[in-house]
């Protein structure tokens, strides 16, 4: 899906847990997520800390979108 969106000419960032799969499929901008059942969260944290964690990941995704890249890049 990431690849087709990119093919249409839209910059896209993939926030995903299993980075090797994303690389195999061909995503170009990849931000590693937390865990499969909660990619942008962590039930162990307090609600406030969890939201901060999510915010950090989304900000990182926005930074990835603003980064000029030549090849597949993992923003970890």
């Amino acid at each position, binding site marked *: 899906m990431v690849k087709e969106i990119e093919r249409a*000419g839209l910059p896209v960032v993939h926030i995903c*847990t299993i980075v090797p799969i*994303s690389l195999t499929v061909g995503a170009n901008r990849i931000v590693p997520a937390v865990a499969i059942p909660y*990619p942008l969260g962590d039930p162990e944290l307090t609600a406030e800390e969890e939201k901060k964690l999510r915010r950090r990941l989304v900000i990182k995704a926005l930074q990835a979108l603003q980064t000029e890249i030549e090849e597949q890049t993992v923003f970890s």
Partner: protein
Amino acid sequence: MANRKVRVVHYLNQFFGQIGGEEKADLPPTVKEGPLGPGLAFTEAFQDQAEIVATVICGDTYFAANIDRAREEVTALIGRYNPDVVLAGPAFNAGRYGTACGAVAQGVVETLKKPVVSGMHPENPGYEMYRRFAYIVETGSSAASLRKAVGPMARLALKLGRGEKLGLPQEEGYLPRGIRKNVFLAERSSKRAVDMLVARLRGEDYVSEYPMPFFDRVEPSPPLKDPAKARVALVTSGGIVPKGNPDKIESSSATSYARYDLSGVDDLTDKAYQTVHGGFDPVYANNDPDRVLPVDVMRELEKEGLIGRLHRYYYTTVGNGTSVANARCYAAAIAAELKRDGVQAVILTST
């Protein structure tokens, strides 16, 4: 030696290992003596020529979240039973399971120096990632094709377990491994090439000796210039839908996607949203769907002016077992709508 039974160790996930469903997917590697689940069908197919001495089981999520560690742990457990050959799966089109089976193959081949036989749908990412390590039999996309996979997998395992050499993929019934071997043929290459050309000109069937590899890569798009002015859209394969799943998106092998209006929504609550993804324990995503689709944070960034605006609609489907062809269609349609609506960048989340 001739009559000795081939020793087999079988690798399974928590589901086929009969430990449990997604709620047990965090299970660290464990071992049980003898065959289990699909292992019983293999035992039957071996007809006393081979024996599954142990079954190593690991949760799919545990494996996917700790690939290196899980590979080492599983390989060590397998090594204890001194197998002649290792069976992994079959994993059909289950992505985490296929990746785990492939990684186990890598561990076993590199560390224990024993051959590994697995079964996967050709679209399973585990095939492309690990095909050079395992002999992978083609299966259907779901466990309904188990019966058909057992015979060919058992046959390969017996041959490899006895140290016999295997022929080419198409002769032996495994998927190509991307390995080249030198062979001597009766006719020289120039003659074979001309024969092939003549066949092609005549419109007859011919088989290339070296099919061109197909790398479907897309050039990275130019970066987003000014997020503070951009309209950014959220898309997910994590199956986040309004409570009750109004468009009936399937929890596995989805045949559709949907878009939902986020007007006036600042936070995805457990009252109004849920996940329908069938490939992970849904408890955490149901309790707070923002853990998969970060609407709350996007709204925050929108208010602070860090992004221009969050696009009015989000798009969703379920990535679990969904065919590549379908996913491609959905995304092409989604991308066309997003462009039409003036979206400048996309954040796509996957579980």
